[in-house]
């Protein structure tokens, strides 16, 4: 039989591990990221509709991961969504780069895709991307499709 203090210590460790596990689950593991470690600069992009885009979603260019969505807020002046993007310092983009919200696979998660422009000026910290394309909302797309179909015979 072990001594009272050793027993107390073990039970203390057990309870601590248990609560650590609970906290881990509760916080859903916040601080794992491939980008956070390295230096990055932040730019903004306003969208009419971001669909299902989530914070911490990837930012990709030509399919390569170059950053993460840092925050999403609603701008009450323009009634648009403003998305903050953290982009790795190693990747420089022209100032007239365009951003669009894309979906990986048919049902996969949504991410922000950047397409480089032709400007000689580079994007800098705090800049806003001027050309954006919103998320494709499936319901709208289907609605549009049905509307077009319905309109077809009348046109003939």
């Amino acid at each position, binding site marked *: 039989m072990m001594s009272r203090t050793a027993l107390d210590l073990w*039970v203390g460790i057990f*309870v601590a591990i248990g609560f650590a*596990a*609970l906290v881990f*689950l509760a916080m*859903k593991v916040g601080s794992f*990221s*491939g980008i956070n470690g390295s230096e990055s600069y932040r730019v903004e992009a306003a969208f009419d509709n971001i669909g299902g885009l989530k914070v911490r979603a*990837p930012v990709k260019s030509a399919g390569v*991961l170059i950053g993460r969505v840092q925050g999403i807020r609603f701008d009450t002046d323009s009634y648009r969504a403003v998305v903050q993007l953290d982009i790795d310092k190693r990747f420089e983009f022209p100032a007239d780069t365009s951003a669009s919200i894309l979906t990986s696979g048919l049902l996969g998660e949504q991410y922000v895709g950047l397409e480089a422009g032709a400007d000689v000026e580079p994007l800098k910290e705090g800049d806003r991307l001027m050309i954006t394309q919103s998320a494709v909302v499936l319901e709208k797309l289907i609605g549009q499709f049905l509307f077009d179909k319905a309109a077809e015979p009348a046109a003939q």
Partner: protein
Amino acid sequence: MNGLFAGLAAGLRHVGKLTIDGIWRLGFATRFMFAVLLASGQSLTRIHLTIRELYFSGVLSLLIITVSGLFVGLVLGLQGYDILQRYGSADAVGVMVALSLLRELGPVIAALLFASRAGSAITAEIGLMKTTEQLKAMDMMAVNPIARVVAPRFWGGVLSMPLLAALFSAMGVFGGWLITVVVIGVDDGAFWSQMQAAVEFDYDVLNGIIKSMVFGTVVSLIAVFEGYDCEPTAEGVSRAITRTVVTSALAILALDFVLTSFMFRG
């Protein structure tokens, strides 16, 4: 013909006897539960009694829970990846691993392991104390064995179970991450971000904790009851241990269904 009737009657009598015995035992178990709750004061005022049981049911279950959780997570990761990548949604594997663990596998498997690791040990210990007249001796020394022996073991189990279930789920998520992100190469950020987006604390996490609390209570109660109620012989103790494991497993699975159907949001 007569023989057939006689056989049938004997069969029915047997069923009737089993039913009556079952109901009687259930009634006895309920009374026992109240006796345990009433005698629980000491488990709190003399906390080292409960701490000692936390060691036996909690600390000694750490290894099996950690290892099993890890392996279940690894398997979930592999299977989840295999299924999801067919639909181009391999990124969602984190969601799948986390939700299956938090909602079902964590509480249920941890409780099953707990019943066979700690529950059976509790039954064996109490059963042996009964067989060797230690409980009677305690009673003769004016020390209530339910307060001194049964209640601390019950509370030790009740308190350990949610922590063990949480540890199991956490290890499972870690295992899923290990196999899909580190080994297979699913995107790390997508794994966590999708998971975080899909897992709701006050639904998925909390319901899992509630389940594990219910399981912990039921398994601990079964374990102490079977030990206290066992026939005071070697075979009696071994039968009681078997009953603890079997009854606990049935109770866990049946209650899991009941609880899930209550928690289910159509």
